[in-house]
């Protein structure tokens, strides 16, 4: 009985986490400009990752594996927002601005890599 | 039978595709950094070839658990483990060479390096050599 309960709980967490990861990835592709993409990827990624790790922890029970999963979760919780912050900071200081109305910012592939010139 | 062949050889085919993509990058691109990335792709394809050959169906990682189990072949793992670190050390050496070439020639495009060498050896025979600084 309790085994079934554990399975159900971890299944729910895993599916929920997977859905968040998928939404984030979809946003990464579909959103119109850089900062909205970052919003989609950064927030849902942290939540989705932690939910999936939680689901795995429920599955693993009290063991060394769970300790490692907690550590992974904790480090992701630090590093993931930090790198999102770092990228946003770099883009903003380089002069990239959010342009919700302007679709032309989506220059074709090759030319776009110069968009980060220092002003 | 056909499906078995497909699944049984798919790893090797992709390895060959990667190998050829790496080789093509090295041969056809003139930029030296790009050539080194191509070499890395080629190198990774060799790693995957070895590891694919070491895999045993139903096997598990070669770390003893106290229970009798089927283990994948540990020997390719040993060879490739050291090769990866050697690979990054030699990549660093290659990149150092690229940096020195940039210092000496002012460019990392193979064509321009070649043109500068020709000019030094044979004089300004090719005519328009402005780009070879």
């Amino acid at each position, binding site marked *: 009985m309790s085994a079934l309960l554990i399975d159900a709980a971890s299944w729910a967490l895993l599916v929920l986490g997977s859905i968040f990861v998928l939404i984030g990835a979809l946003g990464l592709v579909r959103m119109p400009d850089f900062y909205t993409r970052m919003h989609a990827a950064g927030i849902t990624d942290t939540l989705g990752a932690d939910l999936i790790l939680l689901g795995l922890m429920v599955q693993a029970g009290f063991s060394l594996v769970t300790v490692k999963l907690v550590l992974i979760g904790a480090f992701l919780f630090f590093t993931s927002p930090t790198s999102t912050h770092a990228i946003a900071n770099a883009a903003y200081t380089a002069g990239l601005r959010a342009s919700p109305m302007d679709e032309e910012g989506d220059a074709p592939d090759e030319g776009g890599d110069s968009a980060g010139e220092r002003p | 039978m056909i499906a078995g062949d497909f699944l049984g050889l798919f790893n090797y085919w992709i390895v*060959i595709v990667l*190998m050829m993509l790496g080789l093509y990058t090295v041969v056809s691109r003139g930029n030296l950094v790009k050539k080194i990335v191509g070499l890395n792709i080629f190198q990774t394809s060799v*790693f*995957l070839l070895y590891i694919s050959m070491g895999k045993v*169906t139903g096997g598990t990682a070669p770390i003893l*658990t106290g229970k009798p189990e089927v283990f*994948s072949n540990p020997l390719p793992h040993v060879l490739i483990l050291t090769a990866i670190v050697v690979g990054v050390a030699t990549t660093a050496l290659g990149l150092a060479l690229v940096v020195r070439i940039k210092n000496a020639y002012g460019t990392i495009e193979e064509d321009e390096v070649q043109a500068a060498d020709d000019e030094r050896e044979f004089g300004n025979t090719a005519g328009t050599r402005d780009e070879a600084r």
Partner: protein
Amino acid sequence: MTIANVIDIALLVFLGLTAFAILKLRALFAVVMLSSVFSLVSACLLVHLDAVDVAFTEAAVGAGISTVLMLATLALTARREKASTRTQALPLIVVFLTGLALVYGTLDMPRFGDPAAPIHHHVAPKYIHDTETEIGIPNIVTAVLASYRGFDTLGEVTVIFTAGIGVLLLLGAFIREPDGLKIQTMHHHLVLRVVTKVLIGPILLFALYVQAHGDYGPGGGFQAGVIFAAAFIIYALVFGLENARLALPGHAVRVLVACGVLLYGGVGIVSILFGENYLNYSVLGSTPVHGQHWGILLVEFGVGLTVSAVMVSTFYAFAGQNPPISDEDW
């Protein structure tokens, strides 16, 4: 088609797509990003193919060092590849024909995962069977790496040593010495500085864990050395190269490069002095198995020392170059 097949095929297709994208893109920065993703995918694939030790090494190398070295090279050379003027037809034909010949060759190969393949019947069964009694550690890969094939590994460490010397010979004369000028560091990036300070301790601790735990799980000197170097590289990136060199001076690192190889070779000499063959550790302890434990521990430490010192001094050599990229190439 089982889930294992699906994962295998999907990851392999990712690798192919990434390699193709690397070939197509001309912005070198994008190429560097793609090659870091290429390394991530191949680490996943290696885990899936049971090669956890190899995946660990790929992860340690690919997560930090190789991207940093590539970026450092771009910072000293150019950011864009120029359009090639040469003809592409001949390479394409050569590559296509070679690929075709190789595919024809695979038709005779043993199928993927076949336990009857010749590779599984020569020395591997001996290693798998005897490791527990002869070496006495659970990780067969470490046993083969450090003991059964200790000569090979000594050779590999020497190659790494030589490559490190080569980098220093090529770039060492151009390393900018501290000249008293005030330098810009990432002083105003408060978030980065705080998070880095929090993380450097755990990274170093994790490197020690990997070094010591290599006998029992995935890990060992090669992986630990790279992780150790990564901690110093991240310190140098955030707090400035000068401060990193104050903490770990360049000449001290150069001494450590040699010390690691010396330790490895020295263990071999000691076993000769005890009247055994070179790198036979059985005589180092009270019992042969105990001696193997000592030998593997020392040898792995030597490997870790050399690898981390080579990586750190390579980073110092690249990051300390003068001058940085010109405006024209930016």
